[in-house]
């Protein structure tokens, strides 16, 4: 069941008549990530889910920046643009704004989107261009061989921080909500079913969808998300966010706290009606923001799912509307009329 208020994100993208399979979306290029990289799982999840959208393959575009994850477009048999570090949201903004008939996907990592490209990310989110941004968060720089990233935990020992990193990390969900993104979700590479369900909603959302995907880098930051994958503890740690459902894990629940915030408590200790029911469509993002803080500081309980999904006009549809309005008011432009507008005089 869709959690979307607004499912017109693909309304202008032409549909395919032919039945598609995963194979249709695999390019002929050899995939060159390290064996065991979480990116493989995400690629397979995307390739196997996009046929369901039933779009014309030629109307899908994957745009990326720089980093391990940014090789992604080469492996999709669609149009693709592997651009430069941090700039994919800007490039995708120009593309999506001028081509509403395309389904545009941005593939980025934590360094690409939150360090060098942080500015473009927040502005894409506030503008609400019709894009899907998949942020592969492995909390490390992989392609440059293992420096700490803007999502690395404080004290991270890496090649560039032998005595531990000093700077506080970004929480991508909090950042996106702070920028008032209209669709914000988190999922994980190892849970294909959940990943695909989130991607489906993201694709159909009109406006910018930001999906943080926890992704394991088995070379430079192996096991970063092990608690969430370990069958012993994952069900206790993971707080499932489902619209209209109580926010709980196997053993914990979220409720309003006495100080006006929210808190995680032992599920057995609270009455069912005390448990906070998730409302992804709340216009005010502050409660979603509070949820995004529950994993601080150390992954004791991690909300997974769609934090926020609200209806807000997208930048590209509003720009198209202004163009249509201009034509409706004064008719289509005529070059001769334009050049001769204003004060002119004739000689001879």
């Amino acid at each position, binding site marked *: 069941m869709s959690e979307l208020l607004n499912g017109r994100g693909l309304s202008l993208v032409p549909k395919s008549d032919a039945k598609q399979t995963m194979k249709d979306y695999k390019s002929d290029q050899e995939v060159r990530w390290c064996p065991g990289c979480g990116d493989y799982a995400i690629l397979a999840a995307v390739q196997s889910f996009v046929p369901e959208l039933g779009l014309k393959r030629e109307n899908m575009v994957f745009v990326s920046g720089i980093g391990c994850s940014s090789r992604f477009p080469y492996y999709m048999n669609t149009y693709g643009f592997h*651009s430069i570090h941090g700039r994919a949201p800007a490039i995708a903004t*120009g593309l999506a704004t*001028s081509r509403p008939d395309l389904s545009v996907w941005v593939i980025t990592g934590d360094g690409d989107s939150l360090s060098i490209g942080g500015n*473009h990310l927040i502005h894409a989110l506030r503008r609400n261009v019709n894009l899907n941004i998949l942020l592969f968060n492995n909390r490390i720089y992989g392609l440059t061989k293992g420096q700490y990233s803007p999502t690395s935990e404080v004290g991270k020992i890496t090649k560039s921080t032998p005595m531990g990193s000093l700077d506080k990390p970004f929480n991508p969900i909090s950042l996106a909500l702070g920028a008032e993104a209209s669709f914000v979700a988190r999922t994980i590479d190892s849970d294909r079913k959940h990943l695909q369900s989130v991607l489906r909603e993201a694709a159909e959302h009109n406006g910018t969808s930001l999906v943080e995907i926890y992704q394991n880098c088995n070379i430079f930051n192996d096991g970063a998300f092990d608690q969430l994958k370990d069958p012993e503890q994952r069900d206790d740690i993971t707080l499932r966010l489902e619209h209209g459902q109580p926010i709980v894990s196997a053993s914990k629940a979220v409720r309003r706290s006495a100080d006006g915030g929210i808190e995680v408590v032992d599920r057995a200790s609270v009455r069912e009606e005390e448990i906070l029911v998730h409302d992804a469509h709340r216009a005010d993002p502050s409660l979603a923001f509070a949820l995004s803080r529950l994993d601080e500081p150390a992954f004791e309980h991690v909300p997974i799912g769609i934090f926020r999904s609200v209806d807000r006009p997208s930048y590209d549809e509003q720009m198209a509307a202004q163009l249509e309005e201009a034509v409706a008011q004064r008719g289509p432009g005529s*070059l001769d009329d334009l050049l001769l507008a204003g*004060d002119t005089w004739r000689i*001879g």
Partner: protein
Amino acid sequence: MTKQVQQLDRVIIRFAGDSGDGMQLTGDRFTAGTAEFGNDLSTLPNFPAEIRAPAGTLPGVSSFQLHFADHDILTPGDAPNVLVAMNPAALKANLGDLPRGADVIANTDEFTKRNLQKVGYDANPLEDGSLAEWRVHPVPLTSLTVKALEDFDISKKDAERAKNMFALGLLSWLYHRPTEATISFLETKFAKKPDIAKANIAAFTAGWNYGETTESFSVSYEVKPAQLPPGVYRNISGNQALAYGLIAASVQSKLPLFLGSYPITPASDILHELSKHKRFGIRTFQAEDEIAGVGAALGASFGGALGVTTTSGPGVALKAETVGLAVTTELPLIVVDVQRAGPSTGMPTKTEQTDLLMAMYGRNGESPLPVVAAMSPSDCFDAAVEAARLAVKYRTPVMLLSDGYLANGSEPWKVPSAAELPDISVPFATEPNDGEAFLPFKRDPETLARPWAVPGTAGLEHRIGGIEKADGTGNISYDPDNHDRMVRLRQAKIDGIAKDIPALEVDDPDGDARVLVLGWGSTYGPIAAAVRRIRKSGGKVAQAHLRHLNPLPANTGEVLKSYDKVLLPEINLGQLALLLRARFLVDIISYNRVRGLPFKAEELAGVIQDVIDSE
């Protein structure tokens, strides 16, 4: 009293005042009247970057110079015949440019002790005899304006603010300018404030009448209309012409225009202008920064739009990496650099030609691209169409160079009809080009351009990117020989454009000049005016001006080598000279001044004469 009317062939007026005095508006209106009257003209606004510098100070002085004539002219003029000084600061800042004998119309009301002290005058120069060599007309502009507006229901402050219209009225009388257009302009501008509109019109009329009746002006002047080629004319600034050129390029290429831009002086007016023309299907995107501006433009180009970004030097520096991406992905892109004084922030409102080497080489790797420069305000139109033609035909980013002088300066423009403009459309790829397969980097054998296959085209799905691509397939390649080949192919594609641009034309009426003056960009006017002076006095000099700086016209070397001496004035320290010396081993004589201002014709005439004399 019947006043004497004197005929003049040309006049240079400079309006100068505080940046809040409305000098740019006054100049614009005088220009409109002059254009309507049919004189040829050229303008030079000069204003501080500060929006409102402290009132009455030297840094706060804003001026507008207008040169108009009964014949075709090329520059805003070297030295004013008339200075309108609205306050002591305006007098002090501009007196150095004023030849002895010129007229000074000074607003005596502002020559107070305090205002004089602000700019370091110990005594009032209007009274101490220090201006004896100029013809000074002291006019209490402010109090005359306030008096003329006594009966209006407006504040004293609003009445005082209308003094620029009084000055405009006086000057309009002095030079027999038509008044109707200014009156209707004021009615439109203040349509929502009819009292202010009436007051400004009254001030304008009062200024005119003051000229007619006062004894301090015994002579008025007539400058007959100029004989220009027949056609419909309008006055146009460089930024407006450039914006119109981009719109024309969009129409003539049948591609929707997408502008990604970040506000920056002196380029912002192009963004403002284009944002008004949405009914041409133009999308203007004010980005979060310079990088996003060019990134969005490139993304739009990938999608089949005419992607454009507009900026000045500091912005070009920020865009460099994305321009390199456009070079290697071989997508059309127009990068407009309205050059200003640098380095760094430099002097944002002042002009320079110092970005040529950045335009040529300011990227990592071997990343050649065409560079096109406009040579006059109205020529920005043609230069923009040409930049777009090259960008779409060769699938390459193009640097289009304007500068602050062209951007804000204006001149009459013989308006072309759309039918006269070239068709610059190119087809998108629609079919596989290698049997069943599509090779995104298989080149046109003639132009070496790759196919432009836009998303939405079935069967041509492909991936491009900044990593080196295999020749033909476009797949990632680290093969050494492939890289060498691709580097050379990209260079050969740009070099090959030399076959597709006009030869460098030389203006050498008698064909026996031994000295060539070469230029590029906005120096055209001053150089051509200087060349006329030399020829008028019997000297022989040839002139040539480069529109295409990369690649250069195919005959450039031949032209340079056919003269004994080549003089190259540039508003930089010799950037084009460096390129030409390296390429053609010609001993170019450089003349360089980097003052943030255009050259003066007299200055260049002297330099040319010196070179001729040294023969």
